[in-house]
């Protein structure tokens, strides 16, 4: 096992709001090795995007971040602005959720690609241009040379997300964070974009974090999955182990909420009832307990720790785990 490229150690993010402090990320530990993929899954508001912003150091100004984010031997939290700037875009890249808003509407695609390349790599204009054309071709954009002079509004949503990916890949990053990269796209485009990301990841041997609310997105693509709920990681396991046997009731509910193609017409979706707890009023017990059908009195009294039982790499935070092998349980 090689040393981890990224280690998130005890990271917590608090946002001051008029109703009190909002704990968006609640002491999360995660790690990722070079070339591997981590999927972070959870419903909206669970803190997954805030966690990614914490890694990128792009939190809102008022947010308070504690803990360490070790990337390639440096703590990003304590890195000075100039060194952080040199790292971003070169070793650490990101693709945002909505390609309609993440590209600048008044700058050409060529400018937005080439400025990144020229900022970090010692290339002159013609070399940067050549590299931009290669990148656009690599992400499957037809007639890349003509695209350089165009503006984002002249491209479709899927096209724009491909361009955003080309920008992210432009300096051969060691880590790519894809924050819901397909949520804003048509269903038919989603698989194409995910396949593109997977292909480029293999080719460039970069690590990747895919953030999504859809367990189906990470199923065949992530090496490891972390399920987040109310700012905490509540279950974490190698992808296959997780899908074979999930222990956290929330994970099960999340999977059940995906529409099935073979379901009979008019079958109601087993949605998760209720809403996530108010993040400004943390619960004493397990955050999922009010919505959990297995919850017992203990679940409302104390917070379960994230721990492993059957196999050391499968962690879960639950007093009443489901699908346990005989004889093991809490």
């Amino acid at each position, binding site marked *: 096992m090689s040393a981890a490229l990224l280690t998130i150690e005890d990271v917590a993010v608090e946002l001051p709001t008029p109703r009190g402090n909002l704990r968006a990320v609640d002491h999360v530990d995660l790690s990722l090795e070079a070339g591997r993929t981590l999927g972070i899954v959870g419903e909206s508001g669970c803190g997954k995007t805030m966690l990614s912003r914490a890694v*990128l150091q*792009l939190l809102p100004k008022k947010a308070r971040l504690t803990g360490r984010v070790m990337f390639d031997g440096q703590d990003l939290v304590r890195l000075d602005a100039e060194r952080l*700037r*040199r*790292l*971003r*875009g*070169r070793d*650490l*890249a*990101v693709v*945002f959720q*909505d390609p309609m*808003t*993440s*590209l*600048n*509407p*008044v*700058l050409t695609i060529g400018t937005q690609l080439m*400025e*990144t390349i020229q*900022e*970090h790599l010692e290339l002159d204009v013609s070399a940067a241009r050549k590299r931009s054309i290669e990148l656009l071709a690599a992400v499957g954009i037809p007639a890349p040379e003509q695209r350089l002079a165009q*503006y984002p*509004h*002249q491209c479709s949503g899927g096209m724009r997300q491909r361009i*955003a990916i080309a*920008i992210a890949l432009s300096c051969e990053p060691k880590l790519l964070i894809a924050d819901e990269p397909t949520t804003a796209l048509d269903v038919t485009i989603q698989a194409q974009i995910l396949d593109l990301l997977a292909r480029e990841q293999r080719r460039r041997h970069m690590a990747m974090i895919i953030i999504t609310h859809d367990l189906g997105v990470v199923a065949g693509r992530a090496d490891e999955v972390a399920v987040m709920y109310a700012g905490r990681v509540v279950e974490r396991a190698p992808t296959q182990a997780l899908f074979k046997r999930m222990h956290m009731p929330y994970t099960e509910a999340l999977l059940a909420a995906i529409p099935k193609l073979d379901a009979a017409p008019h079958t109601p979706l087993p949605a998760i009832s209720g809403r996530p707890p108010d993040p400004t009023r943390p619960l004493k017990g397990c955050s999922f307990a009010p919505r959990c059908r297995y919850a017992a009195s203990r679940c409302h009294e104390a917070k379960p720790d994230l721990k492993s039982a059957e196999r050391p790499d499968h962690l879960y935070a639950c007093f009443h785990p489901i699908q346990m092998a005989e004889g093991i349980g809490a």
Partner: protein
Amino acid sequence: MLNFVVRRLLAMLPVLLAVSLLTFLIASLLPGDLALVILGDQATPENVAALRRDMGLDQPLWWRYLSWLGHVLQGDLGRSFRTGQTVLQAVAERIPVSLQLMLMAEFIGLLIGVPVAIACAARAGGAFDRVMTGSAFAMLSMPSFLVAILLIYLFAVELHWLPATGYVPFTEAPLANLRFFVLPALTLALAEWPGIMRVLRSDMIATLQEDYIALAKAKGLKPARILFVHALKPSSLTLVTVTGINIGRLLGGTLIVESIFALPGIGRLLVGAIYTRDLVILQGVVLLVACGFVIVNFIVDMLYAVLDPRIRHGHA
């Protein structure tokens, strides 16, 4: 793009027509008989009636409008009955002064307003932002005649740095010309920059919240590039509008400022025409100024298209 220009040009026609009608009505509906004004109190009724016939004043209003419009379209805006100068001559003589004053004022206004707005937006809510937003409010509430007098007192009377009043053409003595223009232009600019600053500041603050600014940061671009390239351009649409409208407002401002600083511009011409009831000059100058305003706004529309490709391509 050509399509866009043609559409805008066509849209200007009804506006210009309405402008001409309003200008004509304002001058015609003013109380008092033009013939009587020209001939003076001592004129006999017969003389007045004869002059009215000569000038077509006995014709119905719509007929007078159409015949005036016909002359205007041929480039004949009339002739002052006092000086004998044609409107075009009088305006051509004075327009360089007013244009120089307005351009210098707008330039100084932008020179102060834009950097202050960017600096405020970059650290919104900070000490600099609060001080400048406060000063902008104070400047907005100061009338320009007061500012003019304060500037004259400080720079001309106390410090003797600049002349208080006067004018020489730029072609004769460029440096002296600029010195005469500093105080009047500054007077107007001090009223201009708060508006420029407030509009650009709030647009910049909104733009800085955009996803594409977060991405620009994530790309590791330099802070200056993010502010000036990624944020300034998409934030400047309202600024361009305001600048266009300002130029119209500046035309009004020049009335006072040209009078205080004794600059022989359009403003002074207009004020003089009002005092002497020189309706032909008044009517002609107002029409030309209004047309100038319409043309400035046409240029503003063109600038939108330069700034925002989505307008250029007809998406917005």
